[in-house]
């Protein structure tokens, strides 16, 4: 991810200023798509119109810039950690800096990138469009959630500059209460970012319940909406417990409360219970929207109705619900009772079943489809392989007796990176490429996209397969100085990591360039039957020119008729809106 990514905000406003209304030369093919004259990007150019916007699409763009900057920062810390681990002893930094580097890599990636990434960017942008609504239920709360994110991230950044924590992103007591490093600003930063997550959750659930267009029943909802609904449920029910916990640890730093201080009879294992009650459902906050994106991408590029709509929708809710029963598998070796270990071990198995159902149905969707191999589909292939491999190693780690060997070793590090980078970042990139034409009205270079996708999939495997073997060999995680026999695997992992970083850089470059030089994409470049492709791209500020009625489900590839009917009771301007009576978009 190159440093240009955080300048893309300025780029967007500058780029759209001279909106080229001039139609392309007549010689081009008649249905050569033209860039619409009026759309949400040029609906006000002042900085104030961007920073105080209540349009869900502009808020999504703000989130995109913030989240990509966080990803860049987290990525830099990841490279620092990987470079340090090239040799057993000190390589480029000393032990304390290394401990800070892996902690900040964890905190930034999880709280500032993984949790807000897909819901806040693509959820905010496409939820209202997919519901046929004009905006989310509480637009001003949506803006407040952006500024809470900015405040939390700024506070955490300030903490990082003034010493940063070296406790790992889990802040386990009693070490997090006696660490000499400056951990309190990062705790309070994460607490504030938690509020931004809660507000997004409240916004999504209320919008899905009250803003659906007429005719859009629950069973016609796109599967991306189902996954956002399940994510919002977790965001609302799990985040407050983490908020309380971070306050308790901060209070222990300020006033010496000693609630988890063993010298006063406090119980550090209770801290772990409360922490993982949030943090395990949090990994489902990250992966569920990714699964929603994959359901959309698989149907569009296989041009086929989803295979088992009901099963995928209900397994999203299943993951959200059962995900709350499994937090104890993080405590198997921490002194938890054998009874609880057994209960959590068996319950963790059920969550694995829901992911398996979804994977079988995605592969089933490909059966008898009309598959076009574009970049989002390349990321889908990576996603499929990683979700099966990462998911099943997850179920393996949840097996109690195996976890005793693997707990806190590199096997666990490899597993959760397989899900977080393999599944979620792969889906994030798939979504970024799939919806890039709709969000910015421009096409990205397909060739470069496939090159970058293969680089990322290759680099990812080279980074994390060796870490599975490191874990088996018994190398604990968060080790600055490791035994010499582990070095070969670490060198392999670091080369993979640099390949991965180069892949991300490549994506940043060609996406930013195509923002300016990309050809106009037109309303439906992929020929998809999903709802969001029936409006112009980039969409109008009010999403649809007229009132919207939904005639059928979103994946109607067996009939030649658009799923959405637009009754234009207001005069449609010259823009690329579809014709009266729901014409069939190209």
């Amino acid at each position, binding site marked *: 991810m190159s440093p240009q990514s955080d300048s893309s905000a300025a780029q967007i406003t500058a780029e759209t200023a001279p909106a080229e209304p001039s139609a392309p030369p007549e010689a081009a093919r008649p249905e050569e798509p033209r860039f619409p004259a009026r759309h949400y990007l040029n609906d006000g150019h002042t900085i104030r119109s961007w920073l105080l916007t209540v349009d869900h699409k502009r808020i999504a763009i703000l989130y995109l810039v913030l989240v990509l900057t966080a990803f860049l920062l987290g990525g830099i810390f990841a490279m620092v950690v990987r470079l340090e681990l090239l040799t057993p002893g000190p390589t480029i930094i000393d*032990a304390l800096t290394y*401990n800070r580097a892996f902690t900040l890599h964890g905190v930034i990636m999880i709280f500032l990138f993984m949790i807000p990434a897909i819901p806040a960017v693509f959820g905010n942008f496409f939820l209202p469009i997919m519901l046929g609504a004009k905006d989310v239920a509480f637009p001003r709360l949506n803006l407040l959630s952006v500024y809470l994110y900015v405040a939390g991230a700024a506070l955490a950044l300030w903490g990082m500059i003034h010493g940063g924590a*070296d*406790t790992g992103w889990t802040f386990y007591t*009693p*070490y997090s209460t*006696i660490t*000499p490093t400056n951990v309190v600003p990062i705790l309070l930063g994460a607490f504030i970012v938690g509020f931004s997550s809660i507000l997004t959750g409240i916004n999504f659930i209320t919008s899905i319940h009250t803003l659906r267009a007429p005719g859009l029943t629950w069973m016609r909802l796109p599967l991306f909406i189902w996954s956002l609904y399940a994510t919002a449920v977790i965001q609302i029910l799990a985040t407050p417990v983490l908020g309380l916990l971070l306050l308790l640890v901060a209070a222990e730093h300020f006033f010496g409360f*000693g609630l988890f201080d*063993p*010298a006063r*009879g406090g119980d550090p294992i209770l801290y772990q219970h409360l922490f993982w009650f949030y943090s395990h459902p949090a990994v489902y906050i990250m992966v569920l929207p990714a699964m929603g994106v994959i359901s959309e991408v698989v149907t569009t590029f*296989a*041009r*086929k*109705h989803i*295979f*088992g709509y009901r099963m995928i929708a209900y397994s999203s809710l299943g993951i959200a619900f059962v995900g709350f029963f499994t937090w104890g598998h993080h405590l198997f*070796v921490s*002194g938890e009772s*054998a009874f609880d270990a*057994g209960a959590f*071990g*068996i319950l963790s*198995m059920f969550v694995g079943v829901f992911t398996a*159902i979804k*994977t079988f149905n995605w*592969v*089933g969707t490909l059966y008898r*489809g*009309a*598959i*076009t191999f574009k970049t989002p589909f390349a990321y889908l*292939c990576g996603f*499929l392989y990683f979700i*099966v*491999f990462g998911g*099943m190693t997850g*179920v*393996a780690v949840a*097996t109690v*007796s195996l976890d*005793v*060997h693997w*707990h*806190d*070793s590199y096997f666990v590090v490899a597993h959760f990176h397989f899900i977080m980078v393999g599944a979620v970042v792969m889906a994030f990139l798939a979504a970024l490429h799939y919806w890039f034409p709709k969000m910015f009205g421009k096409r990205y270079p397909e060739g470069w996209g496939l090159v970058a996708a293969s680089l990322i999939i290759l680099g990812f495997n080279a980074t994390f397969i060796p870490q599975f*073997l*490191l874990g*088996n*060999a*018994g190398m*604990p995680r*968060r*080790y*600055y100085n490791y035994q010499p026999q582990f070095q070969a*695997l670490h060198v392999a992992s670091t080369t993979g990591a640099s390949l991965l970083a180069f892949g991300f850089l490549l994506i940043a470059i060609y996406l930013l360039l195509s923002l300016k030089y990309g050809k106009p994409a037109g309303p439906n470049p992929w*020929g998809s039957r999903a709802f969001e492709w029936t409006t112009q791209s980039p969409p109008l500020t009010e999403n649809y020119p007229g009132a919207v009625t939904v005639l059928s489900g979103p994946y109607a590839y*067996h009939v*030649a008729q658009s799923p959405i009917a637009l009754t234009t009771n207001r005069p449609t301007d010259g823009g690329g809106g579809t014709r009266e009576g729901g014409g069939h978009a190209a």
Partner: protein
Amino acid sequence: MNELMRRMLFLPEQASNFSTDVDHLHYFVILTTLVMSFLVGVTALYFFWRYRQRSRDQLTPDVQPGPGMEVMFVVLPLVFFVGWGIAGFRDYVRMQTPPKDAMDVYVMAKQWMWKFSYPEGPSSLSVLRVPTGRPVRLLLTSRDVIHSFFVPAFRLKRDAVPGRYTQMWFVPTKPGRYPIFCAEYCGLSHSNMTGEVVAMDPAEFDAWLADQRTGFPQAQDSAASPGEEVAADASLVEQGRAAAVRNGCLKCHSVDGSPHIGPTWLDLYGRTETMTTGEKILAEEAYLTQSMMDPLAYVVAGFQPVMPSFMGLISPAETAALLEYIKSLRSDRRGGEDRFRGPLNEPAVGQ
């Protein structure tokens, strides 16, 4: 087959009674994972090729799974996952119920070192000696933050939680030296908090234990782990003892009067030693310092001239500490036994 899989998965050797069971379940789970991801991958690749798009606006049939397939999608993973969930839990319960006749060893984790104390026997730093074939139960606790006692070769790990005890047990099956790691992040030198489990034959172990219990104060086996710096304000004698251990003096000089490679240090100070040349010299600071720096100048009668020179190896402060330590070794004043007191419950550092 077991050896092949173990080597392919980079697993350390199987040195405890649990290792083989855990590894067999491990092979089953990993093989199922590989088979499943291979199947899904191949099916997907076949579909990519077989059903590639042929015409631009090609319509595709709306295929929906029948009830049979839906049930299969649910039951197939459920059976596998719950199956090895239960198998794993059965092994775990065995790991958590130590036999009655297990030998107890108290493990005290302290910021960046391990300390082992046998109930009646000696206590040692970083090196845990256990007999093969006999169950050993560890009672773990910690002095400051959460640590985690992890022996990859035994496939065992348990957190040492401050202020309370957790337990784990094992039966070492293969003699050898296996590394101990700290698996729960515990601060600056978390990665240097290593140690070693030495699995010995029962007879050899009993001999060692007896030897440890008779010799007094025979803590020479407590080789300080690299991370241990004796607290600055510790007495000079204490620093001397640590220096003696660190520099390996106690490998040749006994401290309880028993004959060893070099002359015993018990009651050495103030004694008149007869040299191989017949010369009689009073053992006091000058002679002792010179013996450290240039040992071959005067060799005590009846001993081989094998002592290496420590010139430049030990600092003047260490030399002074060593002298104090030697002075303190008098048979009429026996040091206190280093009995395990259990976790001192004083507040964690820094409060």
